[in-house]
């Protein structure tokens, strides 16, 4: 739409990694962004896509008008699958199905006391999350005939989000032995591979989310030795404006006078507040774009364009934001 967007998406030449972690604080619309991106990849690029969450509840399927998914993936739309990781299930799969240690699992790991230890042990649930991911990327095709072209991770909002990338280091500090060590090593290898794993930050054109994004970038670079692939900016106004980011936030004198001369003082204050809110969104988008060198993809605020259109139709609209992301 704007020149800004053009250059941003041109920078995306080259192919995307198989796995993309969508990172971002709670409430920035991470699930919406993940669903829209997955929709774009499956519908417009005919890829088989899996969205992986690790959440109390599956938040992605409802956005696509689908039924809630559990640990086992569910096909919500043709070629678009959703799953919600469960650490207990993943451990069972790993020991029973992968290592063939059914006895060990039943008599040791299912022991109530051991369960408590597992849930409190640092890094273990994270390791199994990454282990499950490794299995999907590297082994699932051979073992089960399951293959996905693209895996989008709707990362947990707090804590484990970026903690996932440090898990190998955490685990290796304990001089572990046995199968968990090889698990850790191969998971770390996968994370290091830029062709396999990449990250994207989801954010909003608001003060704190922009600040947090700017703090998150160097952390990701330190953990993975490479910057995020792109930033997804939810609720952006620039795609809705002909002049994009360069649009002036001033009203015409005539309109300004009409707003200032409203009889009801509450209405007048509310108008000012709404104007301020919209103007700030442009301001923070400008700040974000000026502060980062990675591409920023603006997702329009669909609530303004079509407040009554929800569900999969909204996601379909939003997926158009990715039209110029190559391959």
């Amino acid at each position, binding site marked *: 739409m704007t020149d800004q967007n053009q250059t941003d998406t041109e920078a995306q030449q080259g192919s995307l990694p198989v796995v993309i972690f969508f990172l971002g604080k709670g409430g920035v619309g991470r699930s919406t962004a993940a669903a829209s991106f997955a929709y774009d990849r499956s519908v417009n690029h005919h890829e088989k896509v899996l969205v992986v969450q690790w959440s109390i509840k599956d938040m992605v399927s409802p956005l696509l008008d689908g039924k809630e998914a559990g640990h086992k993936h569910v096909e919500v739309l043709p070629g678009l699958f959703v799953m919600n990781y469960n650490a207990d299930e993943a451990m069972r799969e790993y020991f029973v199905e992968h290592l063939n240690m059914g006895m060990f699992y039943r008599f040791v790991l299912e022991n109530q006391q051991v369960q408590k230890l597992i849930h409190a042990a640092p890094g273990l649930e994270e390791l199994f999350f990454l282990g499950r991911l490794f299995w999907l990327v590297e082994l699932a095709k051979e073992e089960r005939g399951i293959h996905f072209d693209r895996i989008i991770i709707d990362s947990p909002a707090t804590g484990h989000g970026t903690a996932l990338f440090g898990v190998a280091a955490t685990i290796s500090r304990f001089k572990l032995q046995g199968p968990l060590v090889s698990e850790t090593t191969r998971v770390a290898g996968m994370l290091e591979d830029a062709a396999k794993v990449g990250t994207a930050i989801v954010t909003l054109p608001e003060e704190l989310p922009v600040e947090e994004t700017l703090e998150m970038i160097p952390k990701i670079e330190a953990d993975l030795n490479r910057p995020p692939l792109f930033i997804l900016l939810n609720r952006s106004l620039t795609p809705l404006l002909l002049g994009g980011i360069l649009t002036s936030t001033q009203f015409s004198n005539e309109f300004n006078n009409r707003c200032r001369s409203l009889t009801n003082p509450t209405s007048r204050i509310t108008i000012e507040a709404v104007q301020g809110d919209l103007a700030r969104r442009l301001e923070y988008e400008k700040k974000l774009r000026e502060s980062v060198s990675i591409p920023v993809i603006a997702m329009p605020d669909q609530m303004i*364009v079509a407040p009554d259109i929800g569900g999969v139709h909204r996601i379909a609209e939003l997926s158009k934001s990715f039209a110029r992301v190559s391959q």
Partner: protein
Amino acid sequence: MTKASNESTRPVSSQASRKTRLHIFLGAGGVGKTTLSASLAIHLAFQGRKVGLLSIDPAKRLKTALGAGDIDESGQIFWQKGHDNKLCSKEQNNHGQLRAAILSLPDSLKRWIRDEGLEGDHEETLFSHPLFQTVAEKIASATETLAPIRMAEWTEQFQDTDDLIIDTAPGIHAVDFLIRPERLLAFFDSKILEWLKWFAGGDEESAGFIQKMVRGGAKQILKALGKVGGENILLSLGELLLMMDKVMFRMVDRLEEARQWIRHESTDIVIVCSPRDDAISVARELSKILTENGMNQSRILLNRSIPESFFDDQEVTGLYQTTEFPADNFENLFRHYLQSAHSIRKSIMARLGETKVTEVPVLSGLEEAGDLRLEELDRLGRSVRSSV
């Protein structure tokens, strides 16, 4: 805190802590949780109450909201009556006070360990233990799970607190803090702690016949675990647990205290949302999870709402104008937005449905960070409280 305050740290009876009313703020990121919780705190303190404000917000927004310098985890006095009398209510017996803290559990943990007074160089050994460091990191990243411990400790330290206000981390996960403090409790309270401590070289001699039998079974389990992950980690864990024994005892007590307190009928759970799609989803989800867990005392606060009366104003509807997108200029986008805002409002109200919703209207100027003054927070806090 200091040694002195710790001496008063005895298991507090359930009754005593109910003297303090708990207010917990939940909600998606960026909906104004921190500002609203700080405003309620200021308002209650101005009314003469002794208030504690504990922010779990990793964004450390509290400092900005209160316009204060450094706030640490200890709970220092941020404001009290006498400093600025004209601001608070003029009643004779106004002892209003506000203590504010930003939760930093790794720091609290170190303080708790120091409070116990470990022998000799144990403290240093413990702090440099790789597992301790990882546990501290894990704690920092799962702050909301452990926050109840700090919360219960607050009423031990400051027994005259009337209201304790908790500002939680953004998102659905913060609800863990309310519904699952027992998950952590289960670990601290479990047999495996005993096993591990014993594995690392605890009190073998005193064991009776039955204990020996149980330990026989435990040994098999630990050996099997050792095969998967190595015995090193189990030994380290056991060592760590031995060193932290007393601290953990206290943590268990506090968690149990917090668990009961959170579920007490006087507890005020405030789910904050703003007129934004995802914020509404999070609020609905939180409200549902709380109800499912038998916690019916929650209410929804719709922050930055555009009140219905605004859309009834004919002068306002006269400003509506639809446009094709992309809009030619900001003014056209704005005029279209006014019209959409009405639909957005209707759909939000429909989605929030039956739940009790209180609106905090959008106010010009209040949104800018750092701009808030105490008077404004007090005013805002009144609207937060009035819905109690």
